[in-house]
């Protein structure tokens, strides 16, 4: 399976880019030691003008490269954490609803529906504004708008898998419902969620950026969205301030999608075979 995925060029490009990103994120303290928010140079040094600050400095004289590197960390962390929370929540609710059926299912799906009909970004906006911006509220806010997809997907998978012959076979064999759920159904209900996880991660990264753009990012952390937002007022005079993190953001999202696409494609092919 992994080999099949790796055979695809999308996987190579996307995976490669992501690997670099994650390496950079993991090694951020080594690559750019110290606080990335520290004021280290003259404000607004242009990129490639000063060897100490290859990508230049921002309005307060903070190193853009350091920001970019540490921003990778925060963006990756927020993206992954939000996606993880969303998927965990979605998978839990979805499978609980799917297995329980009856009024529990009905009630849970009402909640899912409630979250689905509220524009996720509006919800995130209200959530972060109300509880104050910190990485955790941002993560939760994003997850809150993203968990319904996985929930519905898992539920429908559980519902159809529940009727599968092999589940009937296991029941006939005398297997307990709990074991059927955990050992037989869940391992098959979850992979499609993993497949859409790429979309969720990418969406989370973009949502974080948009929240930061509206001034709702964690003020103590550098994220790319914050860098874009701060550079926004200098868009005309120092476009690089938002161009560079913007490009990094877009590239990351492209990479996530490419990898996700490769995985989805291989999974779909598997299913067809």
């Amino acid at each position, binding site marked *: 399976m992994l080999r099949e995925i790796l055979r695809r060029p999308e996987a190579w490009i996307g995976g490669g880019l992501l690997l670099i990103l994650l390496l950079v994120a993991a090694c951020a303290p080594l690559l750019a030691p110290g606080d990335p928010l520290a004021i280290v140079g003259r404000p607004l040094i242009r990129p490639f003008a000063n060897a100490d600050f290859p990508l230049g400095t921002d309005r*307060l004289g903070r190193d853009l490269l350091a920001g970019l590197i540490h921003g990778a960390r925060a963006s990756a962390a927020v993206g992954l954490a939000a996606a993880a929370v969303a998927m965990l929540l979605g998978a839990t609710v979805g499978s609980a609803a799917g297995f329980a059926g009856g009024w529990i299912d009905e009630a849970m799906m009402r909640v899912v529906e409630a979250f689905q009909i509220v524009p996720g970004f509006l919800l995130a906006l209200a959530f972060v504004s109300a509880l104050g911006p910190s990485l955790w509220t941002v993560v939760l806010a994003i997850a809150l708008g993203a968990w319904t997809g996985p929930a519905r997907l898992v539920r429908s998978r559980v519902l159809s898998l529940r009727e599968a012959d092999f589940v009937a076979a296991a029941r006939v064999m005398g297997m307990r419902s709990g074991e059927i759920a955990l050992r037989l159904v869940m391992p098959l209900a979850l992979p499609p969620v993993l497949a859409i996880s790429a979309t969720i991660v990418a969406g989370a990264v973009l949502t974080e950026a948009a929240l930061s753009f509206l001034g709702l990012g964690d003020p103590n952390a550098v994220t790319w969205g914050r860098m874009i937002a701060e550079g926004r007022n200098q868009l005309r*005079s120092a476009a690089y301030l938002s161009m560079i993190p913007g490009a990094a953001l877009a590239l990351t999202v492209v990479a996530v999608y490419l990898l996700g696409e490769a995985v989805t494609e291989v999974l779909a092919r598997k299913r067809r075979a």
Partner: protein
Amino acid sequence: AAGGRLVVAADSEPRQLNPAIVASNGVFFIASKIVEPLAEASFEAGGLRPLLATSWEGSEDGLAVTFRLREGVLWHDGKPFTSADVAFSALEVWKPLQNIGRSLFANLEDVETPDDQTAVFRFSKPTPLQLVANALPVVSAVLPKHVYEGTEIAANPANAALIGTGPFVWGEHKPGEYYLLRRNAAYWAPDQPKIDELVYRVLPDRAAAANSLEAGEIQLAAFSAVPLTDLERVSEVPGLEVVTKGYEALTYQLTVEINHRNAHLKHLKVRQAIAHAIDRKFVLDAIFLGYAAEATGPVPANDPTFYTPEVELYPHDVEKARALLDEAGYPAGADGTRFKLRLLPAPYFNETRQFGDYLRQALAAVGIDAVIVANDSAGHQKAVYTDHEFDLAVAPTVFRADPAISTTILVRSGVPAGTPFSNQGGYENPELDALIDEALITLDSGKRVDLYKRFQKLVTEDLPLINVADWSFTSVASDRLRGLASNPRWAVSNWADLEQEA
């Protein structure tokens, strides 16, 4: 020249537009064109230009102020303006309702109207004429009695469709889009106003304001609506000019508020260390790009009356700051950190937020680990001014021509919790309190000024708060506009003399 339409950027839509009820720059920016005060600030000696009042005079005992009112002034609905309107506004609006007037006119007992052109304000305690005069541009917007009398004033429909005596008449408001004001043909000053239509385009986004100016969609952006970083570029755009004058009486102060309940911040040495940790020059250059001045104390240097440079100064000195902290009993730990603080930058301005970012770094340099807590306006108001859930806060306080109006309250003890822009850091200094109280009833201007000079010295010595910079705003305008920045409160004045060349 032809009047034409002038389109101006507005960054917000005040929900209460009546300047007699809400004395704030956001309201004045629009409402001052329609509803006029008794007097306006001026660059001339004395600092005041008569508007609805032509003269004012205080009694010896400080218990009365007599205003002579302008003749031949008509309300926008055609009724004549009289002293009854002034008396009504003062007693029914400014004193009970207005955010600033409530304290200023607390001792106002009565307003006598011996004739249509005379209004005598009677106070129960001596009230310095200097203070009253300095406050006039801010607190004295006059409302038409015949419209408001007998109604619930705060809910009167005329608060939305203002009726005043000013050079412009209320047109319409399309929420989220614009306000439209029209020329008042019956304005009392001859040949004024010179603009036919004044449109406030609602543009909450600062980048959009700059772009709209450049695209020629608007002709004026006041109150630094154009980001400072864009000013240099915009100043080179043909047809646009950057104006830095016209805000002299609207000085904003970048202030670090201190919660004196915090055990560390109780130490004067710690406060001094913080003051020394701040590189004011950097703040001016990087954050204000030069459009500000170093602050020395609670009164800005551009105030012609009260300012004194003879105060305790805190030059940028990291070593000294560290030494002070050591002395105060806070040696640096293994990781270089001495203690932690919560830092709450006010969210109202880019500059306060950026300064928050800077302050965090400046404090880190001396071993104080400040964690920024970001709140929106309401959250900030509650956290700082009601719940006192802060250690340091960054505030854009305003100096309104007289320390008694909105400055002394920042350090006076005994202000009830929940009062915004007041001393909520729990600072108590009986000496300072006594001084403040004395100045409030000192009638002699010279003595009053001396008291406030001493006030500045005391504040800088004991540091109940730290003044970092005084900044005023900039305007970017089409170079076809004449009469820009004609007074020190220009953006919030009535613009009767503003002219647009064809």
